């Protein structure tokens, strides 16, 4: 369902307020470029897709009935434009989607006690995760830490990177991500889990070296 903020924005847009359009651009432009790049091979083409999408949004605005959120509606236009332009270029890209099977563990096995210990599959003393409570907020939020997280995301597989970026950076819902990427709810969750687990591990390693 559309949010009140969506409706206000739409109203301003229909009334021709440029600031409303600027606001939408700020909200969605970079996510849109990222999604477009799933379907077309170059940055230039992705920008073309996004521009065509905005034209479509403006032209179609009066038809928008608010049955979905504004964001979902904009992204559905984006998907159509991306497919059209991708096909025109004859270079329609497809991602290799990983299957949900063959699980790699979220945490390496040697941090858990083996079967001959009193508490098999529970944390070992050395493997037990530390509290991050004592880490100053400044350390967590500084540029270096964020650069490290970005690096961890860049190191993921393409499909894991897409899902974690759309979910945790662009703040799309799981339903929106499934629609955009055309993957099942389960597959989306598995990819998100792998991605977040790896990023957490990298961050844990990084932070433990800081103090």
């Amino acid at each position: 369902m559309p949010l009140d903020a969506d409706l206000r924005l739409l109203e301003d847009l229909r009334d021709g307020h440029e600031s409303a359009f600027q606001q939408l651009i700020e909200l969605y432009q970079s996510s849109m470029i990222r999604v477009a790049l799933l379907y077309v091979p170059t940055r230039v083409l992705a920008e073309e897709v996004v521009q065509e999408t905005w034209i479509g949004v403006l032209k179609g605005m009066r038809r928008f009935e608010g049955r979905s959120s504004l964001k979902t509606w904009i992204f559905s236009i984006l998907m159509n434009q991306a497919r059209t332009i991708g096909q025109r270029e004859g270079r329609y890209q497809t991602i290799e989607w990983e299957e949900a099977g063959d699980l790699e563990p979220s945490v390496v096995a040697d941090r858990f006690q083996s079967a001959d210990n009193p508490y098999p599959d529970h944390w070992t003393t050395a493997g037990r995760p530390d509290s991050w409570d004592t880490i100053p907020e400044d350390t967590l939020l500084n540029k270096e830490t964020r650069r490290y997280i970005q690096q961890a995301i860049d190191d993921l597989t393409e499909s894991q990177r897409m899902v974690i970026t759309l979910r945790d950076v662009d703040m799309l819902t799981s339903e929106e991500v499934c629609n955009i990427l055309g993957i099942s709810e389960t597959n989306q969750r598995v990819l998100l889990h792998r991605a977040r687990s790896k990023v957490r591990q990298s961050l844990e390693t990084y932070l433990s070296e800081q103090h």
Partner: protein
Amino acid sequence: MSIPCRELVELVTDYLEDTLSPEQHARFEEHLSECGGCRNYIVQMKETIHLTGTLSEEDITPEAEEELLRVFRNWKDHPTEE
């Protein structure tokens, strides 16, 4: 029987996305209430998600924005319906 830690770390996303069955959910929380290591793990995971959300978006270039605003003004002057 509460779930072992090794199994819990695989269920964290299902837990946070609220897709565990009521029984699994109860076992998950029962384990958390007894295990400081796993509580730390969950807090770390939430912090990771939070920090990922602070990654800065690349800003749109002034030229690209100007181009889009031109599109907007053009639409405003000649509104067309599809």
